[in-house]
């Protein structure tokens, strides 16, 4: 007996709405993940106000500002890339995605220099200078490395995600009619931007 059966939509299970909803559900959990970390930051800052203030002067406001501008601009390029694909301009869409990936790399390079400077000053948890700091400043750097580190991990994941989308646009499986994956990578990338919008003032600006 032949047990093959045909799905109502002949096997082409493409559901843009469900796919977007799935992405959003994931993003809500991401918001709560970083939200929890912000609560930790808030409590320790409340308990160690002077130390947090003191430690925050170690960060380079200008590097932070440049990185903020880079991320905002990359959010623009990926949003425009969606518009381009929706309008059928595949080539422009791909160029804009490459620009987004380039911005992600630029962000990480700046982050690398920032972290290297901290390492040179022995400010990473476990290093000699770090261990000698007052408790409040240790907490500040611990949270700084953990939160910006987790964020940087999201930048890397986002860049890889976008790279996959570029491949799929090039081979045609993501196109003018089916752009869910591109849209979802955009949503993820904007979330990365959103988290940085809070990290930047909390660590760099609050003097």
């Amino acid at each position, binding site marked *: 007996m032949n047990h093959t059966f045909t799905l109502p*939509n002949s096997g*082409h299970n*493409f*559901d*843009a*709405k469900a796919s*977007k*909803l799935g992405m*959003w559900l994931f993003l*809500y959990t991401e*918001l*709560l993940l970083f*939200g*929890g970390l912000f*609560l930790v930051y*808030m*409590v320790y800052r*409340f*308990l160690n106000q002077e130390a947090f*203030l003191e430690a925050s002067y170690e960060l380079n*406001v200008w590097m932070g*500002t440049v990185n*903020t*501008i880079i991320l*905002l*601009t990359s*959010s*623009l390029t990926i*949003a*425009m890339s*969606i*518009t381009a694909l*929706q*309008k059928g301009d595949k080539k422009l869409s791909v160029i804009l995605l490459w620009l987004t990936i380039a911005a992600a790399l630029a962000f990480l390079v700046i982050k690398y220099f920032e972290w290297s400077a901290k390492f040179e000053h022995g400010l990473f948890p476990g290093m000699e200078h770090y261990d000698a700091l007052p408790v409040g400043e240790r907490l500040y750097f611990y949270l700084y490395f953990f939160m910006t580190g987790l964020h940087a991990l999201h930048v890397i994941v986002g860049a890889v995600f976008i790279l996959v989308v570029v491949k799929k646009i090039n081979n045609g499986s993501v196109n003018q*009619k*089916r*752009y869910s994956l591109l*849209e979802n990578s*955009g*949503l993820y990338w*904007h979330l990365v*931007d*959103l988290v940085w*919008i*809070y990290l*930047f*003032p*909390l660590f*760099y*600006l*609050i*003097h």
Partner: protein
Amino acid sequence: MDNTHHEEHISSYAELFGTWVALILLTFMTVFISVFGSGLQTLTVAMALLIASVKATVVGLYFMHLKYDQKMYRVMMMVVMSLFTFFLIMVILDYLTR
């Protein structure tokens, strides 16, 4: 029924660019307040968080397309934000009453 069709609004380049300009201006504003207004610490903290929230809302509405998508995503966002606010209030109450 054509299942692949999005009956969606397409964001215009001009609108996206305008959103970016607004975000950059808000960034300069918050940096400016922080660097030149360091005498007013409490105000600086409040302003920084307020500006960050305005920026986050702009990113959500325009870049993440919440303004034009189905209401459901906005409603769920409100639920998540309420949940977070609840956690926040509980933590604040905890530390203020110790």
